[in-house]
């Protein structure tokens, strides 16, 4: 283990005003690996991911704060509540590393509370970005494409899903290194950059379109009622398909969308509601 006191010469000279080069690429990667593997293992209602976050930082904190009296407050501040989308959370992880590094060089430059404040201030926006973009759009599209392959019995679905999972790791690696290298102010520039805006806007349009395309192939609902007039049998489903194929499926999609966005109905209630309505309609022979 490398040990350094504040008075000794660092292994590498800081190469800018933020005191970079104290942490090596290896140090950063070690934190990334720890975080990726353990991020949700100690998840709990009181502080969510905080124990895992502290655990991930331990090697770096030990290197930056060789004295126990400096290490203890560092450990304590990272045990404060923390919860975000873990892979987009690389944006926060890199920022934290940059701030801790700067603080270890000059303890008065950043009070401990601002490290906590930056983390808690960012975790909401980063979670919103990660849940909608990484988990909601990119990973979901991988999952759905894998489902489509698997349902035909093709093992390619198994491998495609692995690629989609590796995307999350790649995202964490890129975001952490990017924000660590660029320093604490970088995250705002990244989240506000016009390229990022374009990517998110484009992904949202693609996502919205794909939800329709996937609903068309994966949501199935048809009405079983038939009526017989004289000799001719009339199927209600045929009449509906005559208006627009799959009208029921897309109607159900928009019903759920309306319940979620306007009525704020929880998912558990929606699932229960679906089961109850489906059973009731099945009992009376509607579906």
């Amino acid at each position, binding site marked *: 283990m490398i040990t350094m006191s504040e008075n000794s010469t660092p292994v590498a000279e800081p190469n800018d005003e933020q005191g970079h080069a104290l942490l090596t690429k290896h140090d950063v990667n070690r934190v990334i690996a720890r975080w*990726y593997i353990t991020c*949700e*293992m*100690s*998840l*709990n209602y009181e502080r969510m991911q905080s*124990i895992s976050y502290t*655990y991930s930082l*331990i090697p770096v904190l030990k290197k930056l704060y060789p004295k126990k009296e400096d*290490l203890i407050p560092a*450990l*304590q501040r990272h*045990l404060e509540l923390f919860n975000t989308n873990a*892979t987009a959370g690389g944006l926060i992880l890199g920022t934290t590393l940059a701030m801790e590094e700067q603080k270890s060089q000059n303890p008065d430059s950043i009070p401990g509370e601002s490290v906590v404040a930056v983390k808690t201030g960012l975790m909401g926006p980063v*979670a919103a970005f990660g*849940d*909608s973009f990484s988990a*909601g759009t990119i*990973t*979901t599209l991988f*999952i759905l*494409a*894998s*489902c489509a392959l*698997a*349902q035909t*019995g093709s*093992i390619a679905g198994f491998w495609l*899903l692995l690629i*989609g999972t590796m995307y999350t*790791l790649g995202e964490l690696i890129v975001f952490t290194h990017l924000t660590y290298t660029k320093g604490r102010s970088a995250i705002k520039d990244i989240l506000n950059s016009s390229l990022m805006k374009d990517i998110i806007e*484009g992904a949202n*349009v*693609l*996502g*919205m*379109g*794909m*939800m*329709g*395309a*996937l*609903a*068309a*192939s*994966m*949501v199935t609902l048809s009405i079983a009622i038939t009526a017989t007039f004289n000799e001719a049998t009339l199927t209600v489903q045929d009449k509906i398909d005559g208006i627009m194929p799959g009208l029921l499926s897309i109607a159900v*999609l928009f019903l*759920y*969308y309306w319940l*979620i*966005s306007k009525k704020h109905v929880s*998912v*558990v209630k929606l*699932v229960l509601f*679906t089961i109850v309505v489906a*059973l*009731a309609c099945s*009992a009376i022979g509607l*579906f």
Partner: protein
Amino acid sequence: MSGAQLVLMAVVMGLMYWIARGMIGGYFAFFYIASPIVVGVVAGLIFGDVTKGLIIGGGIAAAFAGIIAPGGNLPTDSALAATTVIPIALATGLSVEQAIAFAVPMGLLGAFVTNLRKAVNVIFVHRADSYAAEGNTAGITRCAILWPPLIELPLLFLPVFLVVMFGQDAMLAFMNVVPAWVMNGLQVAGGVMPAIGFALIMNMIGKPQMIPYTIIGFILVKAIGLNNITAGLMVGCVAVLVVMARREMEKGKAGA
């Protein structure tokens, strides 16, 4: 299934659920080990029919697709559904639709299990606090990666192990008494369920003004008959055009 094969299946399914929902391996566990597709492949390997496992797993995964866990709250648990229903479906010869019908209510039970885990893990917060006060990093490490998986072992492994061990006979008995309309109703629910996930994602990524894109996507596949990849390419082109059009407009405004 019986004898050693059944015990092996029950142990492996229990371990997979423990890894998946104990999140041992983080998002790799969450997205991959927990996926009904992967559970289907593993169960299929043990049973001796990987293709059947894939098909059932793919069907269950589709029913739960799009349901992500914002803020770590899992509304319904595809991993519990997969690790319990797939082995039983393979052993008793259920159809994909029948498997989905049983997976839907099972998923709801799983949400309780994962919430229980988050409550149990609170114990380690206070331990970690006292270790931090002593500067004991090894103690924090144990609270992060050792105690939670250990305490969750009975919580996550046992229910799945027991259901797989004893579920086959129960399922066969149940299939003989359950009325046809109940099975049909659950199948209908399974067919509609993906729409909940899609609606959640629409609510997260889009404003109501973006609904026309959804309708376009739907028509491309349902009425025009394109496959999803072709439809995706077309919608992708629309996305690029939309972004470029907005850029041009902003440039125009800046120039004026």
